[in-house]
């Protein structure tokens, strides 16, 4: 009796309603009756047959992911519904989206020491290393240049600009020796020199970030101060007094345009929301949004753990944060009431050191953790990541997805791993 009933349960019929936002994959707007225990593969077959029927032979098979009530279908449909306590009686809307293809590992760039920072710009990858050096690589895996000038491990790097025509690139590097250096790199000659030295931090610099218009650099570190520097190449008024002194050094010295005080402990990451707004996260369990023009605090988001890294998405305005635990948390800075944490992403086994939103995909972000894994997430699927980007043999220290084509990560195994996003590849 019981077993037959169970079988009945499994074989329960469900009415689903297939919808999509991608018009090229639209199917007739009719409800379908299917078995409740279907999985994504069966649904894929269903959608593909439907599309094939409607679009005739023009159609080539596509992989889809299915969203039920805003969450990805990972198990069979009945279990998914049961877990979320959705009634089997109603017609269920099943949204299907083209599956993000699995990223493809491309290369492994070996360094002499731990890679603490990484950022790509076009075809170029900039890495900061624990051997105090800044390295430039290209996507093909060729090592272009090693810049040594710091006295401490280079904890963060940031591209300012890269003029393709002139081949002159500008980037900044922040180090634990409390100095930010702005470098000018000639792509063609493959020569670089430090044009400015920014001094002002009283302890190790943890993070730097360049404003969207490339005029300013924000930096934070263990001295709890958030400092904003000029990033322009012109030796402007800020350095007029100090320029003479700088001549004794090999580069000009810059002092901060403004210093924002407020964090009680080390600032772990800074990001520009727009040209006048900075987001900073700190070990004091808070994220602060600063208004640069007012030089004042705009908003504060309190968590209950130290934040190690945050990322702000310009596409959806959400903040993803990595804190001193295994979970990633999605914050909505605009929501004033209720829980600010929108969802928690479970999957890593260790502290998550770094997290970055995709620049092009609204729902996607990648995270790097001390459990040697880089994971690609869709924020509609908090229970499990889309893909694990395996490769690192030690802690992942930094990830970057500045170039939509490449996901770059650096770790304590002295390597930088590059994964190629297939979706962009196809386009």
């Amino acid at each position: 009796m019981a077993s037959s009933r169970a079988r009945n349960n499994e074989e329960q019929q469900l009415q689903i309603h297939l919808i999509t936002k991608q018009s090229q994959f639209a199917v007739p707007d009719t409800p379908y009756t299917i078995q409740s225990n279907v999985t994504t593969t069966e649904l894929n077959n269903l959608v593909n047959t439907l599309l094939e029927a409607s679009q005739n032979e023009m159609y080539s098979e596509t992989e889809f992911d299915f969203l039920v009530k805003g969450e990805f279908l990972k198990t069979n449909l009945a279990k998914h519904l049961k877990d979320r306590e959705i009634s089997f009686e109603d017609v269920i809307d099943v949204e299907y989206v083209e599956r993000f293809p699995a990223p493809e590992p491309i290369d492994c760039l070996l360094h002499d020491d731990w890679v603490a920072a990484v950022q790509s710009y076009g075809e170029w990858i900039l890495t900061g290393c624990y051997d105090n050096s800044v390295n430039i690589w290209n996507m093909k895996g060729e090592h272009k240049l090693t810049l040594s000038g710091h006295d401490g491990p280079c904890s963060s790097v940031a591209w300012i600009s890269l003029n393709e025509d002139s081949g002159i690139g500008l980037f900044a590097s922040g180090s634990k020796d409390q100095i930010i250096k702005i470098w000018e790199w000639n792509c063609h000659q493959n020569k670089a020199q430090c044009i400015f030295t920014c001094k002002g931090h009283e302890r190790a610099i943890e993070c730097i970030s360049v404003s969207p218009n490339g005029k300013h650099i924000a930096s934070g570190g263990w001295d709890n101060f958030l400092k904003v520097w000029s990033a322009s190449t012109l030796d402007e008024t800020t350095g007029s007094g100090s320029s003479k002194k700088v001549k004794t050094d090999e580069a000009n010295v810059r002092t901060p345009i403004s210093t924002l005080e407020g964090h009680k402990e080390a600032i772990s990451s800074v990001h520009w929301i727009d040209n006048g707004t900075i987001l900073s996260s700190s070990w004091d369990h808070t994220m602060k949004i600063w208004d640069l023009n007012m030089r004042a605090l705009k908003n504060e988001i309190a968590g209950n753990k130290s934040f190690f890294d945050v990322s702000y998405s310009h596409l959806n305005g959400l903040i993803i944060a990595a804190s001193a635990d295994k979970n990633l948390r999605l914050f909505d800075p605009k929501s004033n009431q209720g829980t600010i944490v929108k969802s928690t992403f479970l999957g890593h086994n260790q502290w998550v050191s770094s997290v970055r939103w995709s620049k092009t995909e609204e729902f996607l972000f990648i995270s790097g953790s001390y459990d040697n894994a880089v994971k690609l997430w869709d924020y509609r699927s908090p229970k499990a990541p889309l893909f694990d980007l395996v490769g690192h043999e030690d802690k992942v220290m930094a990830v970057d997805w500045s170039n939509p084509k490449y996901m770059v990560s650096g770790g304590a195994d002295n390597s930088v791993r590059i994964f190629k996003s297939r979706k962009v590849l196809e386009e």
Partner: protein
Amino acid sequence: MANKKLKRKIIEEKEIKVDEKPKEQSVETEEDEDYESDKDLLVEIDNEDQQENDENEEEDDSDSDDILSFESFKSDYEENENDFNSENDEEEQLEFEDSSVEDELTTEELESLKKKQEEKQKIKELVEFRKKERVEQKETSKLIMDTLRQPEDETYLAMRENSVQSKSLPGPSNLSDEIEESDKKKFVEYEDDGDTSDEEDIRNTVGNIPLHWYDEYKHIGYDWEGRKIMKPPAKDQLDVFLRKMEDPDFWRTVKDPQTGQDVVLSEEDIQLIKLIKKQRAPDQNFDAYEPWVEWFTSEVEKFPIRNIPDSKQSFLPSKVEKKKIGRLVHSLKMGWMKTKAEQEKIDAEKKIPKFYMLWDSDTGREKMRRIHDHVTAPKRALPGHAESYNPPSEYLFNEKELQDWQNLSDEPHKRKLHFIPQKYKSLRQVPYYQNYIRERFIRCLDLYLCPRAKRMKATVQPEDLIPKLPSSKDLQPFPTTQSMIYRGHNDIVRTMSIEPKGQYFVTGSDDKTIKIWEIATGRCIKTINTKGVVRSVAWCPNQKISLIAVASDKRLLLINPHVGDIKLISKKTDDILAEAPVSEEIENERIKTAVQWSAEIDKDEYKDGVRIVINHFQEIAQVTWHAKGDYFATVMPNGLSRSVLVHQLSKRRSQTSFSKSHGMVQCVLFHPIKPCLFVASQQHIRIYDLVKQEMIKKLMPSCKWISKMAIHPKGDNLLVSTYDKKVMWFDLDLSTKPYQTLKLHASAVRSVAYHSRYPLFASGSDDRGVIVCHGMVYNDLLQNALIVPLKRLEFHEKVSDYGIFEVLFHTTQPWLFSSGSDYTVRLYT
């Protein structure tokens, strides 16, 4: 006749004399003397009185002297009365005296006493006689007044009655006195009246009886001697008329009804009568219209008569009254005293007849007078079918059952039934039950021997005995899981210390190196070889100096790690330490042999950051900084009396505070706020005041071997770990005994640590487990610390018998480090 009268007078006089005697003498002696010399006195007074009487008689002749003679009489009378009263008292006293004296006196004396008594008897007779006389006097006066009565004058009557009844009121008594006076005067007049042939003092002794009883007799009563007083010959109308014509005093002549004599009223009597008739005060001398003296005027004076300010008492409420009222109120409250209404209620209730149950136990259980909480005897089981006289056949024994029953005769208690069921045809045939008395007796014996007292048994659930602790979920954050492993050392990591800012920490190991780690990434920043087993490291708590004190065998190294603020503070530290201050003090020899400071470092070591080396004479087991970062203390367990040394960085000198060794010093600790030093020997902890150079307290942990101590950042609580598996929490304000002892570890506890911000503490043990506890200290002194064990973290691998050597909390985050024998340091978050 005249003699008799005289004698009576003499007696009267004598009485007066007696009364007149000074009162200094006691009444008894007076009396005795009086009666002893009675006869002599009588003779003496006889003579005197004779003269007086003569005088009286002379005076009596003239009418003008009426008043005088009357007054003497009056005084006479009054004194008599007084005498009588006093005599009464005397009599009583005498009698009492006699009875008491009789027992003691001899027969001779008795005779004399008898004589005395006889005399007394005589006197008594006299007194009685006089009593009578007085009554008679009253009666005569009454009689006169009756004659004076005028029926229309009611006020007079009332006044008279008043005068007779009570003499307390001044007005009427005066009146009555006057009336009496007038009465007596009449007597005098009457006595000396020349008109009457009878010169005898005829006073009627019949008493207060209606005189018409004598109407049929010739006499009207009896005089003193008991002779009849004859009625005066009745006067016919003619005689009356003639007298009316002849006698000018006829109009004022009245007849005394008691004696039948005619009495002529004096002028004063007439006046008196007139006044009474006019309803005036019957005193001639009374002036009803004398000038009014206004003692209290109605006018309000401008100034007070008295210039004394009101006394304080007049406006202060009386304390005594307050007390009294308080007492009354209290008694009202307690119900000892009843208000009128209440009392009436009670009285009313009392009036209602009370009914009571004749047999009180009818309704309720009978109360036993002596047995409280009586427990009723257990009820006997009701008889079953087997006990019936006519049981169903299945209850009757068959042969086998009967056999069984009989077989068990040795052990009757094993039988199912204590009797054999019997069947009878009718109740009539049921015989007497043989065991009845026996069973009753046993039952009674059971009840008697069984103590049926109510047992007070508290049912305590074991769960209730466990203190209510908050759930660990509410006490977050605390370290729950391992987050990082710091690998690099090649031997056991004995010691750790964290940078005040919380970015780096330093570890010291048996592989003779110290390593500086970046906490967040787990990267070893620096490794410094110290050429000796590192037993203790301590990062200077002063953030303005970048220094680590490292105890490496016999050397104490002060190392500048060159992390954190490399540019400013590290450089400054180097600069400060480069120059040794000039010390003028001559160092004690005792210290000199124990410690040498040296700033000359060989080049390799200088490169590594070693700035100062302090060479000790023994192996250093521990180094600890004072909170301000200038002083630090080192412990050499084998240093005997010099095992604890306190060094001062700024002056580069060392001192030892203790002249005597108290056993092997395990561990020392500076108080975070006060200038106190905690010194733990194997079994005790001594707290020294460093300023006063004296011991403040000695803590008794009652353990065998202390391993480590940690002090709460507020300085009032101390944690002590011991090698005998215990962790003890001392509340320094509370007691020298531990406030709580935690026996959570299975093996020796090597280290304890407090968190500087969160209410957390942890202990690490050789069982490779770290136990994190919540240790909330309240500012409220009355509330004891709350200690809740939260989590056991066991991640270290088993390498040897040793487990965890040191536990350490992050300065700002709720993170915990543990260093173990598996050469690793682990971070728990």
